[in-house]
């Protein structure tokens, strides 16, 4: 143990250490409060994380643990831990409150957050490492590791900036107020006027289409008309407007239509990560899989 080079056993112990630290944090500070990460804190955390990665990379020759984290054994250990703790999440019901103490609110459970962060640090360091000795053949590796890093880190840090509102709009009565998740009245800076809410049915009377014909007026003077359907949200000033509900007892005669308004300023960053990952997956299939032909010659 702890003889260089470290192997998997050391990796598993480091994960165990993170679990212990996480439990201590959970006991002393309570669950992770993601709402505290709203801008500008998330930008500071991002700078801190990137700074830490650069520092770890520069100190890799002096601190063996950092050197080790750039390599495969560390990746395997962190993946195994992330798998284990996410399995617990999958097996236990996840609820806002109650359930199994701590484990039913896994997303704000410190050990879960620390282990996933550890995995992202390893992915980030691996990206640095391969970027430094860049060759064309490193592109698939870089796409995959950078992609997953960008997608998961920005999705997590950006989550506190996501605004999700609910707006109930009656006929010919433009509405500019909406309700947030915790039932606070919010003004999103746009008003919606409902012209027509329709439901189309199949022959067996199951609903085929929910749609609202609306006008949207924004604070900066935009005025546009459009139809919002399930799977077809409307984009206005960074908001996505979704068809969300109606008066279920009245069917297509519903006197109002309910919309969900979502703003996610970090979405472009997350999508960048997702597209890097898609390109990475393509490379995984085309270039990274073992070549059968060569091996055939060997045998």
């Amino acid at each position, binding site marked *: 143990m702890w003889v260089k080079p470290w192997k998997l056993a050391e990796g598993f112990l480091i994960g165990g250490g993170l679990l212990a630290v996480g439990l201590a944090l959970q006991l002393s500070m309570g669950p992770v409060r993601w709402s505290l990460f709203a801008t500008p804190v998330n930008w500071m955390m991002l700078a801190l994380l990137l700074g830490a990665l650069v520092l770890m990379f520069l100190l890799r020759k002096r601190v063996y643990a950092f050197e080790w984290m750039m390599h495969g054994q560390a990746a*395997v250990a962190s993946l195994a831990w992330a798998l284990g703790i996410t399995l617990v999440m999958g097996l236990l*019901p996840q609820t806002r409150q109650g359930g199994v103490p701590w484990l039913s609110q896994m997303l704000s459970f410190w050990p879960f957050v620390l282990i996933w962060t550890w995995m992202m640090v390893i992915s980030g360091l691996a990206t640095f490492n391969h970027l430094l000795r860049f060759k064309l053949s490193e592109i698939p590796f870089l796409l995959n590791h950078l992609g997953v890093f960008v997608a998961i880190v920005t999705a997590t840090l950006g989550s506190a900036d996501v605004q999700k509102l609910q707006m109930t709009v009656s006929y010919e009565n433009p509405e500019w107020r909406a309700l947030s998740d915790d039932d606070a009245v919010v003004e999103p800076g746009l008003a919606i006027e409902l012209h027509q809410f329709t439901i189309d049915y199949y022959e067996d009377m199951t609903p085929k*289409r929910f749609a609202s014909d609306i006008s949207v007026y924004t604070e900066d003077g935009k005025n546009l008309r459009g139809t919002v359907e*399930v799977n077809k949200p409307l984009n206005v000033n960074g908001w996505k407007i979704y068809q969300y509900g109606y008066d279920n007892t009245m069917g297509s005669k519903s006197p109002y239509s309910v919309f969900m308004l979502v703003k996610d300023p970090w979405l472009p960053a997350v999508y960048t990560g997702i597209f890097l990952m*898609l390109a990475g997956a393509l490379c995984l*299939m085309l270039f990274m899989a073992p070549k*059968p032909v060569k091996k055939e010659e060997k045998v």
Partner: protein
Amino acid sequence: MSWNLFVWFALGAVICWALGAFFAWKEQKAKVYLFTFLGLAIFFAFILGMWISLERPPLRTMGETRLWYSFFLPLAGIIVYSRWRYKWILSFSTVLSLVFICVNLFKPGIHSKSLMPALQSPWFAPHVIVYMFSYALLGAATLMAVYLLFFRKRKTTEVELDLTDNLVYVGLAFLTFGMLMGALWAKEAWGHYWAWDPKETWAAITWLCYLLYMHFRRINPKEWRKACWILLLAFVCLQICWWGINYLPSAQGLSIHTYNVK
């Protein structure tokens, strides 16, 4: 196309696939391709017919996804055969496909024309088809792991491990496509790309498990037995993600990925 006709199309397809598998043993390559692709064409004709008569892609219910799975298994089989010339792979894929065909014969689970609005999206078909193809490849990788762990008498060769790795790499790539397409779709349909819905959580678990296999294989190539065990675990997770979740107490009533309810 009516569901009642399925038995005939399935019979025709399975006979062709069985002939293809037979000629693989006889090492008559041309006939292998001829019969396997003929079987695939027959089976796909049925899927296409269902698509047209249902006026929507047959992808909504478990029974409908099994239809695609039965189709993709022999397809994955013939791809593997074309690259590695394994005589047994087509027999395997035919038998496995037959199992899913039988499940569909006894428990069709194909319903009305209606397709709820949440599923009416250009993402619907690629998301599910890509996943089914991935499941077929990863199913084949699982068979390889079982074979290597429990049935292989002689020493395991590098070629066999390469085949397993290859199935996982391509399967994992498709798994990633399926997952990320699902994320892009979820943003349009539900307002967020990832919400840790039970189905999503299990998709992440499955994905992590195959990533673990891939990294472990690269780092510890000699410990292939442990790697095979990871593959078995991964396949269990995949099954939970696919259908086991419907029986999992933790997911009851929580998942929005439920479309079978009439």
